[in-house]
C-alpha cells in the first residue's frame, strides 16, 4: 500500500459513485416509464443527494454523527476492495469474506447511529434490517462457499477470471443455475428492494432507520446507499456473470442486472419480515444447499 493506491482508490470511488448514481437516476426513469409516467431527470439522484447535503441538520448526540461517519467510511472502504471491472485499487484484497464482513462495519455504523437517535422506529427498522440480513445472507454465503470450494480461491477477480475462460457458457450463472437464482434473490434482499423492504416501510415505521435523518446525515446515507448498491451488485457480477474483462463489459452487465432487479422489484408487493425469513429459509436456502451439495459432493459444473 502506498500513496498511489489511495489516490487510485479515491478515483475508483468517485467513478463508482458517478456511475451508480446515474444508474439510479436512470432507473427511476425506467420505473416511471413502467408506471406510464414521465419520470424525473436522469440526474435527479445527484440533485437529491447534494440538496440533502446542503441542508441544515439536527443531531442526537455524538454516536448519531459518529455512526453515520463510520457507516459511510466502512461502506466506502468496502467499495475500495471491489474490483472495478479489471481495475483494482488495492491488490489481493478482494476476498469475498473480507468484503462480506467489512460491509458489516457500515451496516453496524448505520444501525448504531439510527438507534442512537432515540427514536423507536429507527430501532424497529434496524431490528428488521438485521433480521432481513440473517435471512438473505445465509443462502448467498452457502452458494459462495460452494464456489470457493470448487475453485480454491475466494478472490472475486480470481473467480471472475475463471468464468471468463469458458466464454459466455463459463459463467457461473449458467454452470450453477440454482446458485445463480439464489444469488439473484439474495441480491434483491441485500438491496432492500421489494419484496424485502419492510425495514424501511415509510408509511408503517416512517422509513425505519432513516426516520431521524435530515440534511447532511441524510445526504451521507444516500451516498452510503449508492455505494452499498455498487458493492452488492458488483459481487453478483463478479461471482456469477464473469466480472468484466474490460470496464465497459463490467458496467454493461452491472447496469443490466441492476435494472432487471429494479423492474422485478416494482411489480412485487412487500413481505412482512417473518415472511421474508421463512421464504429465504424455505426456497433459496434449500436451493443453495442443493447447489452446494452438487458442487462439493458430485462436482457438477466444476469441470
Amino acid at each position: 500500500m502506498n500513496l498511489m493506491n489511495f489516490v487510485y482508490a479515491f478515483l475508483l470511488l468517485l467513478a463508482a459513485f458517478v456511475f451508480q448514481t446515474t444508474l439510479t437516476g436512470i432507473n427511476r426513469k425506467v420505473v416511471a416509464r413502467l408506471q406510464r409516467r414521465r419520470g424525473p431527470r436522469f440526474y435527479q439522484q445527484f440533485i437529491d443527494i447534494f440538496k440533502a447535503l446542503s441542508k441544515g441538520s439536527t443531531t442526537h448526540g455524538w454516536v448519531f454523527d459518529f455512526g453515520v461517519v463510520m457507516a459511510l467510511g466502512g461502506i466506502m472502504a468496502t467499495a475500495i476492495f471491489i474490483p472495478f471491472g479489471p481495475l483494482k485499487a488495492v491488490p489481493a484484497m478482494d476476498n469475498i469474506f473480507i468484503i462480506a464482513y467489512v460491509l458489516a462495519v457500515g451496516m453496524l455504523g448505520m444501525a448504531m447511529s439510527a438507534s442512537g437517535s432515540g427514536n423507536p422506529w429507527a430501532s424497529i427498522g434496524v431490528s428488521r434490517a438485521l433480521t432481513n440480513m440473517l435471512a438473505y445472507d445465509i443462502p448467498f454465503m452457502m452458494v459462495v462457499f460452494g464456489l470457493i470450494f470448487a475453485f480454491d480461491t475466494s478472490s472475486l477477480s480470481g473467480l471472475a477470471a475463471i468464468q471468463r475462460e469458458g466464454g459466455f457458457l463459463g459463467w457461473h450463472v449458467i454452470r450453477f443455475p440454482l446458485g445463480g437464482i439464489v444469488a439473484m434473490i439474495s441480491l434483491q434482499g441485500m438491496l432492500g428492494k421489494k419484496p424485502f423492504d419492510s425495514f424501511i416501510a415509510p408509511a408503517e415505521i416512517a422509513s425505519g432507520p432513516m426516520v431521524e435523518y435530515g440534511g447532511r446525515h441524510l445526504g451521507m446515507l444516500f451516498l452510503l446507499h449508492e455505494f452499498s448498491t455498487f458493492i452488492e451488485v458488483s459481487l453478483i457480477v463478479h461471482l456469477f456473470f464473469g466480472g468484466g474483462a474490460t470496464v465497459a463489459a463490467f458496467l454493461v452487465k452491472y447496469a443490466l442486472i441492476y435494472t432487471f432487479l429494479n423492474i422485478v422489484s416494482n411489480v412485487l408487493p412487500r413481505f412482512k419480515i417473518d415472511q421474508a425469513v421463512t421464504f429465504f429459509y424455505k426456497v433459496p436456502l434449500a436451493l443453495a444447499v442443493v447447489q452446494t451439495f452438487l458442487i462439493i459432493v458430485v462436482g457438477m459444473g466444476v469441470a
Partner: protein
Amino acid sequence: MTFDILIVLMFLGAVTAYLVSKADLKAGAYATVLFSLGALVLLLLGRGEIGSEFTILFMGFEVTTIGWYFSGVMVLVYAMTAFFNSYWMDKMIYPGSYNFLYLFSLGGTVGLFFAKDLITLFIFWEIVVWSSTFIVPMGKSRRAAVVYYTISTIGSMATLYGIMLLHRISGTLDIQGAFAPLKNDPVLATVIFFIFIMAGLTKIGIFPFHIWLPLAHGSAPHTFSPVLSGGLVKMGAFIAYMSVGILPAYEAFKGSLTVMGIPIQIYALMILGAVSIVLGTLMAIKQDDAKKLIAYSSVANGGYILIGILLMDQLAFAGSMMHLFNHAIASAAAFLAIAVVAHRTGTTKISELGGMIHRMPLTYLTYLIAIISLAGIPPMGGFVSKWLIIQGLADQGLMFMALAAFFGSIGSFLYVFRPLAAVFLGQLAPRHEELASAPLLMKIPMTILMVLILFFGVLPGWILGIIGQIQVAAGIEPVMMSGNSILAVNGVLNTLNVFMVFGFGFLIALVIFMLMQKSRRVGLMDTYTSAEFIYTPELYHYGSAFYAPFERLYARHPSVEDFLMALAYKGHEAGLMVNALFFSHKPGVTVFWITVIVAVVTLGGVGL
C-alpha cells in the same frame, strides 16, 4: 523456575488475599489484582522456559507452548477482571472467600495447562470446578451453581473414566505416553475419544451440555461472569485439543468412515459444535438479560472453537486457537461493560435500561469494540479468527459446518446489537439521569482490553506466530504469514491493509461530514413521533422483544433443557421410590425384602 513459582504463588496468593481481606476488604481485592497481574508478568517472563519440567508435591508439570498460550489467555482475563473486584466487595456475602477462590481457581487453571500427567491435569481441573462452583452462587442464583457443578462433573467424571481406561491400556499416566497405544486400535481410540472429550464438551458448553452457561454466566457475580465466559470455558478447548491433538485421533481413525475426509467420529462432534452455534445464536437473540445473552453467545462461539480444533488443519485450527483468545478478551470486555452498567444501575435487564451512552461513553465504546470483535467484523481480532475458520471450512468443503458458521456469524450481528441498541443507545430513563460514569479502576482494564482487541485485529502476527508453533508441535502445517498477510490456500488477508483502507474510507466520510453545515443538537425526546406529544422516555424506548417477529418463528421450540430437567426430576422420583420401597419403621418391610433375596438366591442357586 518461573512456572512453579507461578503456580505456588497463585495458591499462596489466594491465602494472602483471604488474610488481607480479613483486615481490609478493598485491600484484599487489590491483592487479587496484584497477584493476577504478577502471574501475567511471570508468564511473559517465562516464555523462554518452554519445554522445562518441574514437580510440585506429587504433581508433575511440563511447560508446553500450547499450555503457555492457554494460561496466557486465562491469566489475562483473570487479571483484567480483577480490577473490578474491589467494587463488589461490599455486595458479596463472603468477600474474603471470593478473593480466595478467585485466585485459587486462577492457580487451578494455570496448573491445569502445564500438567505433565493425566492425574495432575484432573486434579487441577477439579480444583477449578469446585472453587468456581462456590463463587457462582454468590450471585443471583443458587440453582445455577448446582447445574453448573452437575454438568461439569458429568464431564469430568467421564474424562476420569477415560484417564483410568487409558492407564489400564498403556500403563502410564504421562500425557504423551498414555495416548500412544491408541494409534493402532480404532475401536478403543473411538471409545476413549468420546469419553475423554466429555469434560471439554461440558466445559465449552456444547449442545446438549450448554444449559449451564446461561444459568451460571447469567447469574454469577458480575465480576466473575467475565472469568467464566472468557476464561474457564476455554479449559474445555484444551481438553478438546488433547482429544484430537495428543490422542492421535486422525491417525487412529484412519480406517473409519469419513465425511469430506473427516472421520465420522470427529464429524459427529463437529455436528454437535454446529448445533451449538445455531442454538446459541437463536437463544441469544431472544434473551432479555444482557448477561444471559452474552452467555448464549459463548455457547455459539464455543461451537466455532470446537469445530476449528477438531479439524486439526492449517487454517481452521489456527483460527480457532486465535478465536479462543479473541473470544476470551472480547467476551470478558463485554461482560465487564455490562458489569459497569450493573454496578451503576443495579440491573442487567435490557428492557429496563437505555441511553447509557450518555452517561458512560467509555463503557459504551468498550462494549462496542467487544461486540464488533465477537461478531467477527473487521478491524477487530474476532474477524481474523472467524475468517481463518471459514476459510478452513471452505478448504475442506464442510458445507453444513459452514452453514452453521454463517448462521452464527450473521446471527451474532443480531444479538450483539440488541444490548447495544437497548442498553447503551435509545432513550435514557429519567431515573438514570444522575448516573456517574465508570470509576477509574474499571476504566483501566476496559481500555486495555479495547486496545488489545483492536491491536490483534490489525496486527495478528504475534499471536499467529505462537499458534504456528503450537501447530508445529501438534504435527500439522503452521499457518502461513508473510508480512502482515495471512496466506491461506484459498485466500489472502492483509489485516493492516484492511485497517488502512478502512481508515481511508473513514477519513473521506469524515471530511464530507465536516465540510457540511454544523448540526443542531436536539434532545433525545425531540424525535419524529408522528407529531404526538410524548414525555415518558421509558415508554418511548424500543428495548423489549427486540426481534419479536423473528423470535415468533421459533417461539415453540423443543428444549433440551426441559428434557434434562425432566431427567433430573425422574432421578428425584426414583429416589422417592427407593425411599418408599425400602425404608419404613415397620420391620415387616425389610423382613419381606430379606425373604425375597434369600428366595431369589436360593432358587437361582438351585437353577445353577
